[in-house]
């Protein structure tokens, strides 16, 4: 899923401070599963903001709504009535959702409440790890399903570097060295010798380096 973390409370409070009517809009998909912007998180944030503004003696009306996803019109349109009645929207969706709200409701200021961070997995309860950087041309098949672009801090295709020690990365001694993982897995499958083959440079055109990307499915467009 897309993993993100709610912004620090002080930052959110400062960003919504100019408004007297606010709608906190949650999202029931990715940010819900990483406990950053689902229904429960919306309610807790709303409660905290009310307490904080009341303490400051500032009047602010906070409305709450969570839709299934903010990145699809079919679900986002359910928010139309509440958006029409508010001064600003604090969206707890990922960056894509926030931008969709702004695109569909051009007349209403939209603020982000979540720092969208990575595409990852839930390793165990409470621990999310980055796995994929969306390079647009998946080569996991060449690396025994461990991505050197996302999980090696130096994006080495012919790793490891000289800083790998005890299976950990030089950048963070709690992070596994992706190349150690690749080598271990290659060994387990009896394919260590294949890693002696030179892997040529990446064509980054399919990645975000090539500019904002689009996907058109001709079979679905009418």
């Amino acid at each position: 899923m897309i993993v993100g973390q709610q912004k620090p409370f002080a930052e959110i409070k400062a960003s919504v401070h100019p408004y007297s009517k606010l709608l906190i809009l949650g999202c029931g998909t990715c940010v819900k599963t990483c406990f950053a912007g689902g229904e429960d998180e919306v309610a807790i944030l709303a409660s905290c903001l009310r307490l904080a503004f009341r303490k400051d003696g500032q009047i602010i009306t906070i409305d709450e709504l969570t839709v299934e996803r903010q990145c699809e019109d079919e679900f986002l349109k359910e928010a139309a009535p509440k958006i029409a009645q508010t001064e600003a929207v604090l969206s707890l969706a990922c960056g894509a959702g926030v931008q969709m709200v702004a695109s569909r409701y051009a007349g209403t200021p939209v603020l982000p409440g979540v720092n969208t961070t990575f595409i990852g997995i839930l390793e165990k309860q409470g621990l999310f790890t980055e796995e994929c950087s969306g390079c647009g041309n998946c080569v996991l098949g060449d690396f025994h399903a461990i991505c050197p672009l996302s999980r090696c801090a130096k994006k080495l295709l012919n790793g490891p570097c000289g800083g790998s020690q005890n299976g950990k990365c030089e950048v963070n001694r709690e992070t596994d060295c992706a190349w150690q993982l690749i080598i271990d897995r290659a060994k387990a499958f009896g394919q260590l010798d294949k890693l002696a083959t030179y892997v040529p440079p990446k064509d980054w055109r399919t990645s975000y380096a090539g500019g904002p990307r689009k996907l058109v499915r001709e079979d679905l467009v009418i």
Partner: protein
Amino acid sequence: MNGSRLQHMLTLGRFAVTAEVGPPRGANADIIREKAARLKGYVDAVNVTDNQTAIVRMSSMSSCVHLIQMGVEPVMQMVTRDRNRIALQSDVMGAYSLGIRNVLCLSGDHQTFGSQAEAMNVYDIDSLHLIHTLKTMRDEGRDMSGFQLNGAPKMFIGAAENPFADPFEYRVIRLAKKISAGAEFIQTQCVYDLPRFKEWMKLAHQKGLTEKVHILAGITPLKSARMAKYMAANVSGIMIPEVMIKRMEGASKEKAAEVGIKICLETIQELREIKGLHGIHIMAIEWEETVPEIVRAADLYPRPQVS
């Protein structure tokens, strides 16, 4: 021969001695000239680091030019952390046009270690790609797009290897990979753990790699017990045996440097007996004044004159 004295030395089968300097954190070229002046005549070539540890310094290429102007042969280190393939190829061409003849290809310490950790990194290509590119530029006169260059840079191509990093068994496979890609000389991370280094050399020798590439062992003299402990704990890829740290701790503050140099000379003596080792690379960063002393005491002075 492309005009690299270092390459000439190694091809003739002479035991090579190289050293290393770090450029200044500023535009003051006197710093680099002073360091080079201390080394001149005592080594066959001097490596110039490339924003080492991701700390912003005067560029490697410009520092190399200062060295050339003083009659000192440089080895230009290039990391792939800060520049993409376009900039790297461009720099190689420019470097060759300025008289630089040796390049050491590295991926480079991650920028989070450095003085500007907020920076975006590049890592468009890795060190293997850079080695391969230098080889293609030299042997085919083409850049990475296949374009025929007007003037082919013919560099003596080097790479680094770290026998003290993990996974140990894969290090020799990676060495072979670098050689296939085009590496002609290797400078290793500094050696303290001789048994491990000898083990690695043995494996390399068994695979016939010591005949295909010139390996130079890294040496860094210890200045103090504190330095030894700091390096062992904090610098990735350095292993210092406990017995060595104890020797440093056993010395008084005034005598510590002396002990450090003694250990260094003992290490060099043992290294010279290793089959397939073609030289040493002395990294006495910010302690360049010890290099002449070490080279003399190790019986490696004067350096052979090669035309």
